[in-house]
């Protein structure tokens, strides 16, 4: 197979903090060092690796460092990694929105990029006018758009409103229209950022179907970034795992995903290292554990326990958590006031206990993200407080089990909804 894209030592450096401060002086320093004294650029050296958990000791960070890989023609490659691993930067460079600091990327064929749907839509203009505008922004000619107009309108499902200004569209319709235009782009290489996260379920299915057609039927190369492991698994053949701006793993999509998941450290306990007294609300500690025994089985009730301190009463308080699958699917939500109608708590320390009944979750990995928040203002539970846990199959249980790791996921929540069955 021929190579479609080749990354040669691509690096990208960013500055932290306010860009407009001291820029003039930095530029003068750089100019002094490079042009006058003939030395190396002083700001190219000092960059530290992009690691968000430690505070940067330098003003410059490498968002990408020595990215070096090849993508074969017709391949559908998923790029995964934690937030800040450099995925979006990589796509931005590929889309020519920003240039690399060093290194080159070579590609065969046009690169069409889709970092956002409906880029450049103007609310005052009609759907039809926006199709033309958006298409042209994405690099299509007027004639090309005119030829595909009917198909685009049809795909978007907005035919009735096509001569209505887009400001009267619902947000879902706007997204559908935007995706419809993008779906009919015909570049040899397609770069797609998390655009499938928008729109309703039916449309997502349609969009994924269209993406599959593009890659399989028409032999185009697709680079796809997503947090949603399920859609990566469904769409991509191979994968690239980015970590702190470098490629840490490359292989098939399934291998890359399991590598990514295995590197996620299991954290079943959280202790706030530095409870701030001046914060209105503080999450002090949290843990997730089985009600009995030391391991969580599908047959064990799961207990989520956490303590918070209310320093100042808050108008509309939110205390609860989201249960997510390791694939980042939101599964369930629980709040302290779902049943009792409370909306705030007096100052003091509170301990909460939640319990997920036995036989609710199938085996697999899960995440709990806490909300200790003033509604619409701020969530005081940081990213460090995210807990993870693993549910194992109970060997003694005779119940049917579903595995989250099989590629076509059947279900995650197992409910005992059966009322009866009898022989007729």
């Amino acid at each position: 197979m021929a190579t479609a894209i080749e990354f040669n030592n691509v690096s990208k450096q960013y500055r932290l903090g306010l860009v407009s401060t001291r820029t003039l002086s930095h530029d003068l320093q750089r100019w002094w060092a490079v042009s006058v004294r003939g030395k190396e650029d002083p700001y190219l050296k000092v960059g530290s690796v992009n690691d968000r958990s430690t505070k940067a000791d330098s003003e410059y960070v490498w968002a990408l460092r020595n990215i070096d890989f090849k993508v074969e023609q017709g391949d559908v490659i998923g790029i995964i990694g934690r937030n800040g691993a450099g995925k979006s930067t990589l796509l931005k460079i590929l889309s020519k929105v920003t240039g690399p600091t060093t290194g080159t990327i070579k590609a065969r064929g046009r690169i069409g990029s889709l970092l956002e749907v409906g880029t450049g839509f103007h609310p005052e203009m009609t759907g039809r006018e926006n199709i033309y505008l958006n298409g042209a922004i994405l690099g299509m000619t007027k004639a090309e758009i005119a030829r595909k107009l009917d198909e685009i309108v049809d795909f978007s499902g907005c035919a009735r409103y096509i001569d209505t200004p887009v400001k009267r569209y619902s947000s879902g319709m706007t997204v559908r229209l935007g995706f419809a235009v993008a779906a009919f782009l015909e570049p040899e290489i397609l770069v797609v950022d998390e655009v499938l996260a928008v729109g309703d379920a039916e449309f997502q299915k349609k969009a994924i179907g269209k993406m599959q057609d593009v890659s399989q039927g028409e032999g185009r190369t697709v680079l796809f970034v997503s947090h949603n492991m399920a859609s990566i698994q469904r769409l991509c053949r191979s994968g690239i795992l980015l970590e702190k701006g470098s490629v840490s793993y490359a292989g098939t999509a399934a291998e890359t995903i399991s590598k990514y998941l295995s590197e996620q450290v299991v954290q079943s306990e959280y202790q706030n290292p530095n409870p701030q007294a001046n914060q209105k609300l503080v999450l002090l500690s949290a843990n997730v554990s089985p009600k009995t025994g030391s391991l969580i089985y599908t047959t064990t009730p799961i207990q989520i326990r956490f303590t918070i301190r209310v320093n100042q009463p808050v108008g509309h308080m939110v205390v609860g958590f989201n249960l997510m699958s390791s694939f980042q699917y939101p599964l369930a939500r629980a709040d302290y006031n779902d049943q009792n109608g409370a909306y705030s708590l007096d100052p003091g320390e509170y301990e909460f206990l939640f319990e997920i009944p036995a036989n609710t979750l199938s085996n697999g990995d899960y995440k709990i993200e806490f909300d200790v928040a003033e509604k619409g203002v701020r969530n005081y539970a940081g990213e460090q407080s995210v807990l993870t846990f693993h549910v194992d199959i109970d060997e003694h249980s005779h119940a049917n089990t579903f595995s989250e790791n099989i590629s076509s996921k059947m279900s995650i929540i197992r409910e005992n909804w059966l009322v009866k069955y009898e022989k007729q």
Partner: protein
Amino acid sequence: MNETQEWTTVIQPKDKLLSVDFKELWRYRDLYTLFVKRNIITQYKQTVLGPLWFVIQPVLTVIMYMVVFGGIAGIATDDIPQPLFYLAGTCMWQYFSDCLGKTSNTFVNNSGLFGKVYFPRLITPLSNVTSNLLRFGIQMSLFIVVYVIYAIRGCNAHLTWYLLLFPLLVMMMAGLALGFGLVISSMTTKYRDLQILFSFVVSLWMYATPIVYPLSLVKGKVAAGFDLYTIMRLNPVTPVLETFKYGALGAGEFIGWQWLAYSFVFMVALLALGVVIFNKTQKSFMDTV
């Protein structure tokens, strides 16, 4: 397979200085016409009075000039009726400053769009300069209406053959505004304080251009040891404006071909510089805005 096939896209840190991709610009010509269309449509749709504003603004400006410069300061207008004289200058200057303002804010105003998709950024200022012609056209119609009224009532103003240069003059105005705007826009992405500087430089610039006074008034005047007449003519906008006023109104005298040529060469050089700097900026500006 076809490993020998050439790389068609190469992305690298910095291009050579003079690598403006005109072919690419041409490929995106449909985007240019669509942007022009968008600008015109949205200008109409967002206001209650719509294009009427284009007329109200110069009318109020001219009335103000008549009171301040014609009335209080008593500055002569080359024997041309004041409204005609001021309107001619204001319409031309308005087009220039509109284009300059729009162009110099290209990066700041479009950072959302530029951050998501690539197209030759030059398309944006080019389409702005073009769509501003609509407003200019409406204001010129106002000028013609006022002109006709005065011509019927009888006045000194008369057309000369130099009016045939009008298309060239408009093009030069657009070119100068675009050139300055491109240079400014590239500089302001990095140093925002320059934006403040440029915005008042442009408003002062108007007074260095013969709009509220005729150039003939400056003849023989000396300030701080400099011959003001020469300095005024070095302002590249002056020859354009003077030629227009002479052509349309017969005001004063023709500034001379050498000055018009100077202005033209200035425009071409500035435009070339602007395009090169702009092209260099478009690659890295997303990191600085």
